[in-house]
């Protein structure tokens, strides 16, 4: 594939979205990036969405739909926040603890899946309920508040969030593109039976995937908690909702992956999603309109992906006619 086509395919969606968002804001007389807070909102959204997208994509690409990712973020951030508040530790300690606990809970989630051999959707729903209940019990239902802890609230700055994003992308690229685990992961993705026959062990591979996804969700839980100063409890699958923010960037990432690295695609998908979020903020779009627009964008993109051949065919015919 030529470099020009690669670049066009990779950057088309985020650039078109940026132009569209900028035009909409300009038509309303609003600057997209007027203050540093707008940049912070944008970067924070990239960090949140990219971490959830990585976590979801790792397992979904292998056919494992994991509904428990939100509950892993919830439980790991609750435990790390409780420890940090009790021992009067700082935000870096909380971030590390969140990642460690996230990895442990992800591993447990994966271990249950490979042990009971039930469909991953069912197992992950059960795990989500269990983790939500555990977080509720640990906090007596009150959640955790650290609105008074300026130290923890001060972490969510542009440089800190950028560092987390860069480390996450590098980790994804190195682990999944340059390690034996990553090659085996790809082999299992393209043909599990053949891969297993060649000696690849699918259970350890799945467990590592769940562990990495859990670690990403631990980091996402930390960012979410230190942004608003509270961790609200969720019950009855209330923790599932963060997962939905990853769908659009994941599909965009899949599309971009055809032209470049799919991990870079997920990141650019997160950038696209963050631009749309910033548009909602700058124009103070009501939540009902926001939900309708987000759903329409997702549906339109899926329609395009599923009918790409037909749509391209239409353009090709037109070109030939000309």
């Amino acid at each position, binding site marked *: 594939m030529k470099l020009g086509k690669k670049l066009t395919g990779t950057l088309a969606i985020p650039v078109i979205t940026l132009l569209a968002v900028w035009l909409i804001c300009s038509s309303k007389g609003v600057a997209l990036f007027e*203050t540093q*807070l*707008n940049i*912070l*909102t944008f970067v*924070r*959204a990239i960090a*949140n*969405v990219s971490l959830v997208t990585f976590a979801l994509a790792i397992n979904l690409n292998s056919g494992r739909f994991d509904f428990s990712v939100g509950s892993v973020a919830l439980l790991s951030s609750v435990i790390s926040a409780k420890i940090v508040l009790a021992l009067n530790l700082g935000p870096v300690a909380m971030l590390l603890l969140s990642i460690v606990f996230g990895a442990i809970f992800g591993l447990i989630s994966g271990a249950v899946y490979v042990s009971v051999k039930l469909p991953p959707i069912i197992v992950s729903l059960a795990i989500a309920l269990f983790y939500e209940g555990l977080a*509720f019990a640990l906090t*007596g*239902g*009150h*959640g955790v*508040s650290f*609105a*008074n802890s300026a130290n923890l*609230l001060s972490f969510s700055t542009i440089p800190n969030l950028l560092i987390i994003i860069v480390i996450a992308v590098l980790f994804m690229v190195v682990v999944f593109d340059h390690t034996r685990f990553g090659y085996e992961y790809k082999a299992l993705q393209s043909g599990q039976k053949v891969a297993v026959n060649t000696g690849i062990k699918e259970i350890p591979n799945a467990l590592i995937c769940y562990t990495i996804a859990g670690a990403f969700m631990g980091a996402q839980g930390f960012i979410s908690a230190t*942004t*608003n*100063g*509270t961790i*609200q*409890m*969720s*019950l*009855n699958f*209330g923790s599932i*909702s963060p997962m939905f*923010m990853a769908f659009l960037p994941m599909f965009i990432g899949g599309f971009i992956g055809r032209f470049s690295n799919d991990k870079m695609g997920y990141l650019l998908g997160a950038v696209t999603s*963050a631009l749309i*979020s*910033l548009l*909602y*903020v700058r124009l*103070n*779009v*009501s*939540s*009902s309109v*926001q939900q309708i627009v987000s759903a329409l964008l997702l549906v339109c993109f899926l329609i395009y992906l599923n009918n790409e051949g037909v749509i391209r065919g239409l353009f090709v015919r037109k070109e030939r006619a000309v």
Partner: protein
Amino acid sequence: MKTLKRLTALLLVVVMVFSLAACGSKESGGNDSAQTSGPDDSQNVKIGVLVSDVTSAEALAFRAYYEEYIQEQYNVTFMYSDELADAAAEASAIDNFIANNCKAIISFASADRPAQIEQCEQNGVYYAVATGTLTEEQYEQYKGYEHYVGAIGPDLYTEYMAGYNMAKYYLDQGYTKFGMFGGATPYYTEMHIYRAAGMLVAMCEAGNGTYMGANDMGSMIGAIYGAGCQLEPAVIGDVELVGYVAGYDFDDAWFGKLAAVANDPSVEVLLAVGSGQTAFAGFKQANQKLGDIDCYTADSVALMESGTLDYLAGKFSASIGPVFIAVLSAVQGHPIRTEEGNAFAISQGYWVATSAEQAKEYFEVDSSKTEPAYTRAMLDTLYGASYSDLEAFVQKYSFEEIKELAK
């Protein structure tokens, strides 16, 4: 023989007189049992509790009062529903309570109260509304139902005044630039709409202006509904609503909007119709004021102590005590009805704290599992009481008034 006959007749007359007297005294005892007998603790009474929220601080405090205080004091068992999202879930939960031999249901869920009342009436189960009231039309329709006990909670005017008083508190201090969190206003939740209307009317009065052409309670409620419950920032005479956010999306855009309002350098005061501590506490600037309508928790006290929060209108957990004793009284044969024989509808207000000391004092009482605001001794005085006694008791809801009642 004659003497014997006379004696026998006399004896029969005496027995008859005593029997009638005994019957008479039994009936009068039934009418006035509050002072004579009090609640019957010999048999356990199961009470179902319908809840639409199980995670908010307010919901947890209410549950703790029932399960950790009332259940320890009375021979009752509370059976809680799951988090009920809609009318179908409420109907299913009521069926479950009836199947489990619940004699009464106390409802904190409001997806379809008329359906709840009808279902309980049909099944002969007592029903009461806690921390809320029916609309006037609903009350007129159901007040005569035998098993509808009544409702105790902030009525919509009380909600309106809670918002009005909070905004006025800051307006009286000379603040003119406000940011507002509208909570569930866009979801057409009346409680939040009325609180928001109260805040806006207070701003209209102080600023000599109008908001969407409205400047009093009636017109403001109409204007809010007319706008599809979607509010916008606006200049209101000399006062300005600089920023407005609502809903509970908990996504990046929602947090971004909250941060944008709180980081606007012109915003002096952040007002919340509810959950202000969750929405704004993480973003609030040091020089800004924050007022909220919620409940008293250890976290809210800590926020008041640190100066993050400086006005809190909160429901107190024991406020659901009177509705419990009215339900128990009805189940045990002593329903409390109005003079016309109808179910009661009594409004109850908030405890307002404007200092950390006040909030701490309120929280200590509110969270006590041995001496809460309404103790058993206080509630027992309402068992089988007259409507006027119940009304007088409930309407003395301020912290100071309750302390007086406890003496």
